[in-house]
C-alpha cells in the first residue's frame, strides 16, 4: 500500500511538473503572440503618423481638404546681385465649413473682435450651410494666433503664400504684382507667371538684370528732381549699351507693390515702356548718325541756320539759334532744328525711316513686360514729316525705345535687345546698324555736347559723360502746349567707350530761380543724369578720373569744328 502510495505520489508529482511545463510553454507561445500584436499596433501608429504628417492624410469619410488645391507658391525674384525683390511668405487664409457652425452670429461677432469685417454679411454666410466660405485671406500671424485662441468650431486655415516685395516701391513697375490668389497680373510677375509657378516657392529663383543699388540711385535722383522742378512725373532708365540688360527702370509717381490696390492708375502707369511721347532733340543723335553712316553728311558739312526754314505752310526755327552757318558738330551741340531738318531732307524719308527701323525706334520693344506701348509713326514719310521726325517731332516712342537706339549708336553700331533678365556674359550675336566709325564720331559728338553744348550740366568732374538734351512741347488736342514740356536727357557713360545709356525724362518741369526760370532739358534733366552718374559710377566699379584728366582729351578731333 505504502509502496503503491509512494509511486502514485511520485506519478502525481511528475504529472504536475509536466503540466507546469506545458502551461509555461503555452503561456510563452501566447506571450509572443501578444508581443507581436502590440508591435504591429505600434507599426500602424507609426504609419499613420507618416501619413498625417507627411502626406496630410485624411480620416476615412473626409473629403479632400474642402476641394482646395495645394498652394505651391511662386519662386523668388532676385536682382542681378542676388538681393530679393519678390518672395513668398508662408501665410494662411481663414475659411469656414458653414455646416459645422452652430452659432453663426456668435462666430461672426467673435471674429469681428480679431479683425475688421462685415459682421452681418459674415453671419449670413455662416448660416448658409455652405461647405466653403472664405472669411479672410492672408491673416497676419497675430490674427491667426487670435483666431486659434477663440477655439471656434467649423473654422479652418488653408496654408498658402503671400507675395512680399521687400523693396516696396523700388522697381515697382518692373516687378508688377499678383492677385490675392498669387496669379501674376502685372509686370514681370505676369510675364513670368508660368515660370515662377512651376518652380514653386522653393524652386530656382529668377534673376533680373536690375541692380537694386542702381535702381535706388536712379529712383532717388528722379524723385528729387521731380520735387525740385515741380514736375508731374518722371521716368528714367539705365541700360547696358552692350548687353541690353536694364540695370534700372523707374517711373514716377510710383506705388508700393505690396498694396497695388491702393495706388491710383496714374502711379501704376509705366512711363518708361507704356508711355509713348514725342522725344524732341534727342532724336537728332539718331538722324545725324544715320546721315553720317549713309554718307549724306560728313564732319566737314556746313549747314545754313541763319534763317528759319519754310516748308510749305510750316516754319522750322531754332530755339535760341545762332543765326549763322553751322558746322555739323555745331548743329548737334546747339541743337539746331534748321540744321537737322536739312540733314533729314537730304537723307530722305525712305532712308531715315529705314535707319529708325533698324535702330528699333519703330518696332515693338520686345522687353519682358506686358505694359508696352506701340510707337506712333508718321502716316507717310513726306518731306515735312521726315524733316520734323529728324528732330523728334511727329513721331512718338517710349523712353526705352530711345535708350535702345542710343545703345546701338554708341556701342559700335550693334543693335541690342533690351531685357529685364540677367544675361550671362559672353559674345552677343548682333546685327550692325551703323559702322564703327560712325559710332565713334557719335560718341565724340555726345561728349562734345556735354563739354561745350546744351548738356554741360550733365558733366561731373569724376566721371566723363556724353549726352544730348531733348525738350518737347507736349501734344494736346489740336496742337502743342508751349508751357507743358517733356524735358529729357539722353546720357552715355563712360563717354569714351560707353557701357551704359542713361535716359531721364521729366514731365512738365517748372523753371526755378536756380535755372533762371528755364524748364528746358539742359537745365532740368541734364543735371539729374550727372547726379546719377556720380552715384552709380562707384557702384559699377568705375574709378573716378583725376582732375583735368579728361578735359578735351576725347574731342581733339572735333575742336577745329567749333567756334
Amino acid at each position: 500500500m505504502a509502496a503503491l502510495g509512494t509511486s502514485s505520489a511520485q506519478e502525481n508529482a511528475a504529472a504536475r511538473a509536466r503540466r507546469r511545463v506545458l502551461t509555461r510553454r503555452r503561456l510563452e507561445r501566447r506571450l509572443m503572440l501578444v508581443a507581436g500584436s502590440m508591435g504591429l499596433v505600434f507599426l500602424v501608429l507609426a504609419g499613420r503618423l507618416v501619413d498625417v504628417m507627411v502626406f496630410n492624410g485624411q480620416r476615412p469619410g473626409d473629403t479632400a481638404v474642402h476641394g482646395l488645391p495645394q498652394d505651391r507658391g511662386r519662386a523668388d525674384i532676385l536682382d542681378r546681385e542676388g538681393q530679393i525683390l519678390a518672395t513668398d511668405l508662408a501665410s494662411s487664409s481663414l475659411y469656414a465649413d458653414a455646416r459645422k457652425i452652430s452659432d453663426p452670429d456668435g462666430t461672426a461677432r467673435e471674429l469681428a473682435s480679431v479683425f475688421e469685417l462685415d459682421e452681418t454679411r459674415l453671419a449670413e454666410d455662416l448660416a448658409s450651410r455652405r461647405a466653403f466660405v472664405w472669411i479672410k485671406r492672408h491673416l497676419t500671424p497675430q490674427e491667426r494666433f487670435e483666431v486659434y485662441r477663440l477655439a471656434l468650431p467649423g473654422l479652418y486655415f488653408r496654408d498658402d503664400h503671400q507675395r512680399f516685395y521687400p523693396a516696396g516701391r523700388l522697381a515697382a513697375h518692373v516687378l508688377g504684382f499678383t492677385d490675392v490668389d498669387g496669379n501674376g497680373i502685372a509686370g514681370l510677375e505676369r510675364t513670368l507667371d508660368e515660370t515662377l509657378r512651376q518652380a514653386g516657392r522653393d524652386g530656382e529663383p529668377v534673376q533680373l538684370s536690375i541692380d537694386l543699388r542702381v535702381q535706388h540711385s536712379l529712383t532717388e535722383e528722379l524723385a528729387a528732381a521731380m520735387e525740385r522742378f515741380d514736375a508731374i512725373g518722371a521716368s528714367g532708365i539705365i541700360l547696358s549699351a552692350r548687353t541690353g540688360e536694364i540695370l534700372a527702370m523707374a517711373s514716377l509717381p510710383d506705388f508700393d507693390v505690396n498694396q497695388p490696390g491702393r495706388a491710383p492708375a496714374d502711379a501704376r502707369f509705366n512711363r518708361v515702356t507704356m508711355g509713348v511721347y514725342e522725344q524732341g532733340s534727342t532724336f537728332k543723335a539718331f538722324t545725324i548718325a544715320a546721315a553720317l553712316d549713309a554718307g549724306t553728311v560728313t564732319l566737314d558739312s556746313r549747314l545754313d541756320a541763319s534763317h528759319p526754314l519754310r516748308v510749305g505752310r510750316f516754319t522750322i526755327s531754332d530755339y535760341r539759334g545762332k543765326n549763322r552757318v553751322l558746322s555739323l558738330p555745331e548743329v548737334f551741340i546747339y541743337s539746331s532744328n534748321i540744321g537737322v531738318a536739312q540733314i533729314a531732307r537730304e537723307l530722305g524719308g525712305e532712308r531715315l525711316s529705314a535707319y529708325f527701323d533698324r535702330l528699333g525706334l519703330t518696332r515693338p520693344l520686345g522687353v519682358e513686360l506686358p505694359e508696352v506701348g506701340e510707337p506712333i509713326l508718321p502716316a507717310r514719310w513726306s518731306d515735312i514729316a521726315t524733316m520734323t521726325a529728324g528732330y523728334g517731332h511727329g513721331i512718338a516712342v517710349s523712353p526705352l525705345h530711345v535708350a535702345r537706339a542710343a545703345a546701338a549708336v554708341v556701342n559700335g553700331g550693334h543693335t541690342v535687345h533690351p531685357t529685364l533678365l540677367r544675361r550671362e556674359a559672353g559674345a552677343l550675336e548682333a546685327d550692325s546698324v551703323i559702322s564703327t566709325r560712325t559710332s565713334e564720331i557719335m560718341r565724340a559728338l555726345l561728349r562734345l555736347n556735354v563739354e561745350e553744348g546744351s548738356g554741360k550740366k550733365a558733366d561731373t568732374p569724376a566721371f566723363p559723360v556724353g549726352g544730348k538734351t531733348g525738350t518737347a512741347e507736349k501734344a494736346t488736342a489740336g496742337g502743342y502746349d508751349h508751357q507743358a514740356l517733356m524735358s529729357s536727357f539722353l546720357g552715355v557713360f563712360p563717354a569714351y567707350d560707353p557701357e551704359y545709356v542713361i535716359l531721364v525724362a521729366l514731365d512738365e518741369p517748372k523753371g526755378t530761380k536756380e535755372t533762371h526760370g528755364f524748364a528746358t532739358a539742359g537745365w532740368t534733366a541734364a543735371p539729374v543724369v550727372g547726379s546719377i552718374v556720380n552715384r552709380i559710377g562707384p557702384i559699377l566699379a568705375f574709378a573716378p578720373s583725376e582732375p583735368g584728366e579728361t578735359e578735351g582729351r576725347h574731342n581733339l578731333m572735333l575742336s577745329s569744328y567749333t567756334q
Partner: protein
Amino acid sequence: MYAVTPRKDPMTRWWWSLDRPILGAVVVLACIGALLSLAASPSVARTHDLPEFHFVVRQIAFLVPALAIMCLLTWLDIVRVQLLAFGLLAVSLVALVLCLVAGPEINGAQRWLMLGPISVQPSEFAKPAFVVVAAFLIARGLERPAFPGLLSAFAVYAVLLGLLVMQPDFGQAVLVTAAWATLFFLAGTPLSWSAGLLGVAAGGAFCAYRFVPHVASRVDRFLDPSSGDTYQIDQSLAAFARGGITGQGPGGGDVKLGLPDAHTDFIFAVAGEEFGLIACLFVAGLFALVVLRGLDRALAARDLFVKLAVSGLAVLFGFQAIINMGVNLALLPAKGMTLPFISYGGSSLLALAVTMGFLLALTRRRPGPALDDGGPV
C-alpha cells in the same frame, strides 16, 4: 546563471539588477513630458485665467515625487509587491464606492474624491493593483488546480468593471478589460473562451454605443465626421499636418492654441506641430520599447506570477499610450485618456509611477535556480 557578488553594496546590486532600458525610457518620457508641458499648457492656463506656468510648475512638482515613488517601489520583492497590490486594490475599491456616494459630479461623471485640497482619481490606482492581484490569482490557480484562480480573478474584474461603468468611466473600463483579456489569454484558457470573451466585450461595447448617448455620439462622429462637431480631432490633425517632418519649432505652434485639452489628452498633437514627425516617432518608439521590452522580460521570467503580472502591466501601460495616440491621430473615437508620463495629470502620473514601479520591481534580476524546463515532454 545570475551571478551577483555579495561583496557589492545594496545600492549597486539594486542598480545592476534593474531593467535599465525600461527605466531609461520612462525617465526620458517624463523629461519629454516636462518639456512639452512648456509648449502645451501656457495657452490652456491663460484660458483658465491661471498663471502662465501654472501647469508647468505642477507637472514638474508631480514628476519628481512620482519618479521617486517608482524607484522606491522597485526595491520591493515579489511578495511585498503582491501584498501592496492587494492593499492598494482594496483601498481603491472602497474609494471607488465612496466616489459614487460622496464624489462631486464633474462633467456628468463621479470620478474624483476630494481629500482636502487635493483631488484623487481612485480608478487610476485601481488599474495596476488589479493587474497584479489578477495575475497572482491566475498564477496560483495554474499552480494549484484546486484553487479557483481564474474564477476569483474574474470576480475581482467584474466588481471593478461595474464600479467603473457606474461612474461612468469607459476609458478606464476599456484599459482594465484589455489587461484582463491579456491575462485571460495568457492563462492558457481554450481559444474558444478567448473568442467568447471577445464576443462579450464586443457586446458590451455595442450596449454602451446603444444605451449611452455620449459614447454613441463619439463613435458616430468618428465613423462619419460630417455628422457632428469634430472640432478637437480636426484641430489635432491640423496640428500634425502643420508640423510636417521637422515641426514648426518650439513655440511655433498655432493650432495648439485652439486645442482645449492640449496639455492632457492632445499633447501628442502639440508635440507633432512643434517638433514634427521625427520627435513623434521617437516618442512612439519609447512607448514601444517599454512595452516590448516588458513582454520580453515576461518571456524570460521563471515565475508564472511574474510572467503574468509583467505582461499585464506592460499591456496596461501600452494600451493607454496606444489609445491616446490613436485618438490624436483620428484612428480611434475620441476618448479622454492621458499619454503616460507626458500628459498633465497628478493622479494619472502617480498611478503610472506605481505601474512602472511594480513592473520594474518584478523584472529585477534575482538570484535563483536555473529555469526548470522539465526536459522533453
